[in-house]
C-alpha cells in the first residue's frame, strides 16, 4: 500500500519491479526520500526470501538479520549523503538497515580491495597516499616544475585516470605511477582502477555479484567512465540496478564526470525503465520559475519541467553593488535584519528597525560563490558584526593525525579527504562554493558574484564549460527554499587584479517580472568616525 508521504510518481518509483530503473529527479522532488523507501522495500524482500516477516514499519527486537550473505549496495556521491541515507534507513528499519551497504564508490571499492587483498597485485599493506605525501613525491619526481605546474600535472593525471580505461602513453603519468608504487602507495583514483582489475578475477567477481543483488546509485549524472565501467561489471544477470539523478545538475565535468552516461543508461543496461519525479516540495513557486527559466536555455536535456508544490511566493532579489566590499556589506546587513539584529547596537543605531521580529537564525542562511577567492571579503564583513559562520573546506589531513590509528580508521579518514566539510554542531551562516552546496537546501540563499567572468567562469587562468556553468548556476538557485538573493559587484578585486564585470548572462534569462531590484539602504558605516563612536556610547 502506498505510504501517505509518497506522491504517485514517487510510489511508482518505489514499487517498480522486474527491470533496471532510472529515476530522473529534479531538485527538491524528494530524491532521498524515494530512494530510502525503495531500499526499504528491497530489504524487506530480502527478508521474505530468508523466511523473515516484512519489517516495514515494524520494530522488532531480538531477531537476527537475514542469515544469507545477500545485501543491498547503495552508492552515494559523498560520505555526507551516505550518512544521511543511512540515518533515514535506520529510522525506518532499526533492525535491518545494516543489510544495506551505503557509501561512496571509493568506500565500497576500498572495502573490496582490503577484503580480497590476496587477489590483488597490490602489496597487502598498501596505503593511500596523503596529499602532503603526494606533494613531496611530485617535488622529488619533477624538481624543475613550479608548484603550480606540479598541481596542474597532478590534476591532469587524475583526469586521465577517471576518463581513460587504457591510458594513452604519457610520460608524466608513467613516472608518477612508478614512483607511487615504489612507495607502496596508491592514490585516490587508483582505488577504483585497482578494483576494476581485482574484479577481472572471475571467482571474486561472482562472489561480489552474488552478494549484491540490488544496486543503487545516487547522483548518476556525475559518474565518470571508470565508475560506469565498474557498475557494468557488477551488474550481471539477475542483479537489479536503480540509478537516480538529474542531468541538469551535472557539475563535475572538470573532474571527468560525463552526463552522457546518464543519457545512455538504457543502452548500457538494456531493458531499463525510466521514471520522472517532477513535483518540487522545496522552493517557493516564483523561485522555481526563475531557476527553470535559467536551465531552459540549456540544450542538453530531456527533463520535463519541474512543478511547484509550494504555491506561495518567496523573495527573489537582484542587488547590484558598487564594489565587492559593498556587496558583502549588503549581504551581511540583510542577514542582520533577518535575525532581527545581532546586538543592542543593531537596534539602537537603527541599522535594524525595532519592529523587525527575528525570523531567521544563522543556520537558515547560506552564502554561495563560484570561487573560494570570493569569500574573504564576505568573511571580513561577517567578522565585523561578529556573526558566526562556517566555511566549507576540504579537511587537511596531517600525517601526525594518522599515527597509531588502525588501518580501518585511517582509510575512513582518507576517504573523506576530497569532501568539503561543514561543521553543523551550532548554528552558523554557511559559506559554500556552489559545488559544495549540491544536495543541500536553505531557507535563504545569497549567490554572490553573479557576474560575467565568474558565472560562467571565464578568467585567463580558469575557464569553465559554459553549459556546465549554467547547470552550476541552476544548482545554486535551486538550493533556496524561500528567499534568493542574486548579487553582483561593479568592481571586484580577485587574485590581485581589478575586474569591472558586467552582469552574468544567466541573470537576463530570468523574466523581469520575477525579479525585485533592491538598492542598498545601509546608513553610514558604523564605527567609522570618532563622532559616531561617541554617539554610540551615549546609547548605553
Amino acid at each position, binding site marked *: 500500500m502506498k505510504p501517505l508521504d509518497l506522491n504517485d510518481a514517487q510510489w511508482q518509483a518505489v514499487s517498480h519491479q522486474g527491470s533496471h530503473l532510472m529515476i530522473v529527479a529534479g531538485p527538491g522532488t524528494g530524491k532521498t526520500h524515494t530512494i530510502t523507501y525503495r531500499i526499504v522495500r528491497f530489504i524487506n524482500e530480502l527478508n521474505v526470501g530468508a523466511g523473515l516477516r516484512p519489517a516495514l514499519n515494524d520494530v522488532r527486537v531480538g531477531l537476527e538479520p537475514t542469515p544469507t550473505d545477500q545485501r543491498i549496495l547503495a552508492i552515494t556521491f559523498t560520505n555526507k549523503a551516505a550518512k544521511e541515507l543511512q540515518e533515514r534507513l535506520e529510522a525506518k528499519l532499526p533492525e535491518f538497515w545494516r543489510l544495506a551497504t551505503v557509501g561512496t564508490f571509493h568506500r565500497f571499492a576500498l572495502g573490496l580491495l582490503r577484503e580480497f587483498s590476496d587477489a590483488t597485485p597490490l602489496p597487502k599493506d598498501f596505503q593511500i597516499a596523503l596529499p602532503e605525501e603526494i606533494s613531496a613525491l611530485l617535488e622529488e619526481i619533477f624538481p624543475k616544475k613550479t608548484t603550480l605546474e606540479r598541481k596542474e600535472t597532478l590534476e591532469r593525471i587524475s583526469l586521465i585516470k577517471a576518463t581513460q580505461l587504457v591510458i594513452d602513453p604519457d610520460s608524466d603519468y608513467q613516472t608518477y605511477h612508478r614512483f607511487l608504487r615504489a612507495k607502496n602507495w596508491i592514490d585516490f583514483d587508483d582505488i577504483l582502477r585497482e578494483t576494476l582489475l581485482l574484479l577481472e578475477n572471475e571467482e571474486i567477481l561472482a562472489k561480489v555479484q552474488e552478494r549484491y543483488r540490488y544496486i543503487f546509485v545516487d547522483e548518476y549524472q556525475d559518474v565518470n567512465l571508470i565508475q560506469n565501467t565498474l557498475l557494468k561489471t557488477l551488474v550481471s544477470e539477475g542483479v537489479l540496478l536503480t540509478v537516480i539523478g538529474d542531468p541538469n545538475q551535472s557539475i563535475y565535468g572538470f573532474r571527468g564526470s560525463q552526463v552522457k552516461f546518464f543519457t545512455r543508461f538504457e543502452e548500457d543496461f538494456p531493458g531499463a525503465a525510466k521514471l520522472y519525479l517532477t513535483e518540487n516540495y522545496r522552493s517557493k513557486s516564483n523561485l522555481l520559475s526563475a531557476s527553470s527559466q535559467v536551465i531552459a536555455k540549456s540544450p542538453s536535456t530531456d527533463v520535463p519541467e519541474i512543478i511547484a508544490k509550494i504555491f506561495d511566493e518567496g523573495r527573489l532579489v537582484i542587488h547590484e553593488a558598487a564594489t565587492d566590499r559593498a556587496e558583502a556589506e549588503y549581504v551581511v546587513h540583510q542577514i542582520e535584519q533577518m*535575525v532581527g539584529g545581532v546586538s543592542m547596537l543593531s537596534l*539602537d543605531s537603527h541599522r535594524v528597525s525595532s*519592529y523587525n521580529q527575528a*525570523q531567521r*537564525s544563522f543556520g537558515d542562511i547560506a552564502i554561495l560563490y563560484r570561487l573560494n577567492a570570493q569569500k574573504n571579503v564576505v568573511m571580513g564583513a561577517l567578522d565585523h558584526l561578529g556573526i*558566526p559562520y562556517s566555511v566549507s573546506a576540504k579537511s587537511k589531513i596531517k600525517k601526525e593525525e594518522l599515527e597509531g590509528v588502525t588501518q580501518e580508521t585511517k582509510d575512513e579518514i582518507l576517504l573523506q579527504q576530497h569532501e568539503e566539510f561543514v561543521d553543523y554542531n*551550532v*548554528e552558523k551562516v554557511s559559506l559554500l562554493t556552489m559545488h559544495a552546496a549540491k544536495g543541500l537546501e536553505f531557507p535563504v540563499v545569497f549567490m554572490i558574484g553573479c557576474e560575467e567572468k565568474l558565472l560562467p567562469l571565464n578568467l585567463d587562468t580558469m575557464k569553465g564549460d559554459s553549459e556546465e556553468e549554467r547547470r552550476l548556476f541552476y544548482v545554486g538557485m535551486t538550493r533556496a527554499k524561500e528567499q534568493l538573493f542574486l548579487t553582483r559587484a561593479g568592481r571586484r578585486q580577485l587574485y590581485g587584479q581589478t575586474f569591472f564585470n558586467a552582469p552574468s548572462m544567466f541573470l537576463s534569462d530570468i523574466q523581469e517580472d520575477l525579479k525585485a531590484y533592491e538598492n542598498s539602504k545601509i546608513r553610514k558605516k558604523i564605527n567609522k568616525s570618532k563622532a559616531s563612536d561617541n554617539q554610540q*556610547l551615549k546609547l*548605553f
Partner: protein
Amino acid sequence: MKFYADLHIHSKYSRATSKDLDLEHLYLWAQYKGIQVVGTGDFVHPVWLKELEEKLEPAGEGLFSLKDKYAKPIDAKIPHACRGLVRFMLTVEISNIYKRLDKVRKVHNLIWAPSFEAARKIQAKLGSIGNINSDGRPILGLDSRDLLEITLEADPKNMFVPAHIWTPWFSALGSMGGFDRMEDCFADLTPHVFAVETGLSSDPLMNWRLKQLDPYILVSNSDAHSPSKLGREANIFDTELSYSAIYRALSDENDKGLVGTLEFFPEEGKYHYDGHRLCHVRWHPKQTMENNGLCSRCGKPVTVGVMARVEALADRIEGTKGRRHRPYWNIIPLPEIIGEAKSVGPASKAVQAMYLNMLNHIGSEFYILQDAPVFEIRAVAGDVIAEGISRMRKGDVKIAAGYDGEFGTLEIFKDGERQKIEKQLALF
C-alpha cells in the same frame, strides 16, 4: 566583610564600548564608585584573556588583584577618601542566537569562573565552535542550554547567570527573543541556574511577581560599556571576600552572604515602557493594550517593554515577596543628580568637577549615595545636591519612563524649586 560587587561589565574588546575599558581604568573607577569586586568581562576574548593573565595575580580564593606595578601609577589619582581594595572576578557575557521550538531565540548569558584554568577551558571550547575573536561578547549560534552544559563541564564551580532577563531583544524571558519559562530555555539543566540578573529596566519588586523565579536569587550589575557606568547597579555582600563565598551566597538558599542590591529606578531603564522611539510613542502597557499593540504613528507593533512583559508572565499580585528575596535600594548615578541640581547635562565639565570634589572630600560614590550624612554632603556640595540625594534616598523623584531603547528621563526638581531650596536653607 561588607563589599559591593559589579559582575557584568565589558572590556574595550566588546563592540561599541569605550576604549578606556582596560584593567587600569576599571581599578580606578571601581574605587571612585566604591566597588570592591568587579568583573573582568569578556574573558573569552583571546587578547583580553592574555592581558588579564599578565596583569592580574591571585588574591584570595578565586579572585584576583591588579599587580602592583600596574596599580601603583593609578593610586596617585585616587582621592584618599575613596581608596579601597579592588578584586577582579573572571566574567564574560555570551550572546546566544539560535532556533528553539520553532522560534529564533536571542539570549544573553553570563559565565563567572573561579580560575584562569576554567576560563581557558571555556575559551577553548567556544573557540572551537564559533568566532570569539571579533567581539568580546561573542555571538554564538549555540543553544543556551548547551552553553550551560559547556560551562558546567569546564568547571563545576563556574557560575551561569542569565543576563538582564527581561530585555526584549536579548534575554531568557524577553518579549521578542526569549521564552515564557526558564525551563523552556535551559531544559534539563535548569536546576543548575541559581541566580538571574534583573537588568536596569526591572527591580526585585517586579521579579517577585513570578513564582517561577522563586528558586533564583536576584543579582544586579551595571552591564557597563564605559568605566564611568560602573556600579549603575550592584550587589551588596557581607561575607568572606572570595569566589567560593560569593558562590555560596548565591547558590545556597540558607546562606545570607548576599545582603541586597542597588538598583536603577526601573523607569529609568531603556525598556521599561512600550513604544517606538522613532515615532516618539511612549506608552504605559495599558495604552498599548488599548491600541492593540500597534503604534498610533506607523501602525507597526510597538516594542513591548519590561513592565508589560512582567505583567504578562506574572502570577502574583504586586507586593508579594519572592522566596529568596533581599532588600534593595534605588540609586541614581551621582553625576545625574549633580546635573539635575545644576540644570546641566551629566557629562558637562561643571558636573565632573563637582563629582571629583565630592569624591575628594566625602568618599566613594556609593558611600555618598547610601551612607554619607546629608549635612556632610551639604557642606561640600551645597543645598540642592544634598536635597537631591536625600530625595533619591526617599524615592521622591519623577521619571518619565524609558521605552524602545531610550533611557527614561529623570526629574528631581521642578522648575524654580532649586532657588527656593537654596533660599529656604539660607534662612537657617
